């Protein structure tokens, strides 16, 4: 049972004119796994996240989640089924409180939002679940702050808290460490270690140290093609990968 993949991607394609950005990508993610996707700049990692989250339509191929074909579903439908993404460039509601950012994600999955008179900010149920998500990323003490006033690292945490609050089972994290300093990175890596206990995660990340510390499986994307998939150790020793990618990093 646990061996049945929760996310299954087969033959996924996306091309912009002559430029193939996602070229026949296939991989499986089993429940509870953290599957990292690495690759040099321009490899098509973010495009792949867009395709998985449903914000970008694929030209061909199939995406299945929990046994259901979700290829034709848009982002809103996929979120409802439990696939949530974070953004590479922080995308929180800056003018809202930290709590409301998370509470809105809870609201999206709890009852109708066509309610016009009761003040939403005072809905205890929404706020309680939102606080749970914030506590998970250690932002509960910032709940009443305006999201725009958070530090960069805190906003990265809020991104993750919002995805958690949406009730997702599968988190698609698009470079959660982007722009984070050394200390912030350590905190975020620890946070993702914790998330692994409860969530399946597809992680796109540039920070190799973090990837090899966290990932159960690593896939390497180069020019839209997946040239290797396997455990961190096996990918690390793969000669193609070393040539295409890791070599550059180590030389740099």
């Amino acid at each position: 049972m646990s061996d049945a993949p929760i996310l299954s991607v087969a033959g996924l394609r996306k091309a912009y004119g002559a430029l193939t950005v996602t070229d026949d990508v296939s991989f499986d993610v089993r429940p509870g796994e953290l599957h990292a996707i690495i690759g040099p700049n321009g490899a098509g990692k973010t495009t792949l996240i867009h395709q998985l989250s449903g914000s970008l339509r694929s030209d061909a191929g199939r995406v299945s989640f929990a046994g259901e074909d979700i290829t034709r579903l848009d982002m809103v439908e996929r979120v409802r089924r439990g696939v949530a993404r974070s953004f590479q460039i922080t995308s929180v509601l800056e003018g809202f409180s930290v709590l409301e950012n998370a509470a809105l994600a809870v609201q999206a999955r709890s009852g109708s939002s066509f309610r016009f008179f009761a003040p939403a900010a005072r809905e205890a149920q929404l706020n309680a679940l939102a606080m749970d998500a914030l506590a998970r990323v250690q932002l509960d003490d910032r709940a009443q702050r305006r999201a725009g006033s958070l530090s960069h690292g805190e906003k990265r945490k809020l991104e993750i808290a919002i995805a958690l609050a949406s009730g997702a089972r599968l988190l698609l994290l698009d470079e959660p460490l982007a722009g984070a300093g050394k200390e912030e990175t350590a905190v975020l890596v620890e946070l993702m270690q914790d998330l692994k206990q409860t969530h399946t995660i597809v992680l796109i990340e540039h920070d190799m140290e973090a990837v090899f510390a966290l990932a159960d499986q690593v896939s390497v994307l180069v020019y839209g093609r997946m040239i290797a998939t396997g455990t961190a150790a096996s990918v690390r020793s793969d000669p193609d990968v070393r040539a295409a990618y890791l070599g550059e990093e180590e030389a740099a």
Partner: protein
Amino acid sequence: MSAASQVSPAATPGVAEHRQGGMLAGRGAAMAAAVIFLLLALLPLAATALNDPFLMVTATRIMIFALAALSLDLVLGYGAMVSFGHAAFIGIGAYAVAILSANGVGDILVQAIAAVAASALFALVTGAISLRTRGVYFIMITLAFGQMAYFFMVSLSAYGGDDGITLPARSTLFGAPLLDDDMALFYAVLAVLILAFAGLRAVVASRFGRVLRGTRDNAQRMQAIGFSPFRYQLTAYVMAGAIAGIAGVFLANQAEFVSPAYMTWQRSGELIVMVVLGGMGTLVGAIAGAIAFLLVEDWLAIFSEHWKLGLGILLVLLVLFTRGGIVGGVERLTGRSQP
């Protein structure tokens, strides 16, 4: 509370915007509105004391446009939809009164129901189409629909066409000519204005309003947590259209005359100016903006027939030197920080 005080005062446009967003949660807006409503409620006393019945007529007209501006603030200020055809809804509401009373239906409740139904339906159809576009295209398409409504009424020769139509009488309530008295009409409009303000204040703080505000700030984020903006924006658009239709019912009664001039694109533009002038996304700002705009208009008209030039200059100065309109200015003067 402490969080708010850590935010530096409006140093960037972004911050200014968010201060407006926070306004609805604050008591400041409600207090300001209460003061405005109280002064309005006392106005008839002043009119009697000064023996100036025209004061009440002007105030009634101002409140009617405040009601329309209030509804526009829901789509413009909270929904970030720059609707350039909002006057069409006023016109539809006004024509509902004119057409029904020309056909012997003078009861205001029947007229109001017809006005709300017609303007809401027009909003539903045009909104569903317009909301497929964004930005400048949304402005253009709402403008186009507004002009279509305008030219339809111009060509409606049975009801006066371009010249408009005079009402046989003001509307009645259960057969009683209650609104014939200017003071009764004044208080009826004031009551509806207060009701609309209180209702919309609840709406923008509700679940629905929170989705609307979230979509205004970051539509992509809202989709990523599972909200499709379209349904919420369309609902807001229809609600605003219906309220503007009510404003039209009162406008027809106040003037006892209806013409296509009510629904020109200039009128729609003026409504936008009222909302921006007062401060978008605050509700109380729309009311203050309508009052300021129409008073300045009247006042400038005394000095010169070229008063629109003066109005233009005032607007340019206001946009350049104040952020957040009248509400933003008052906030800075009182140093009130918003939660």
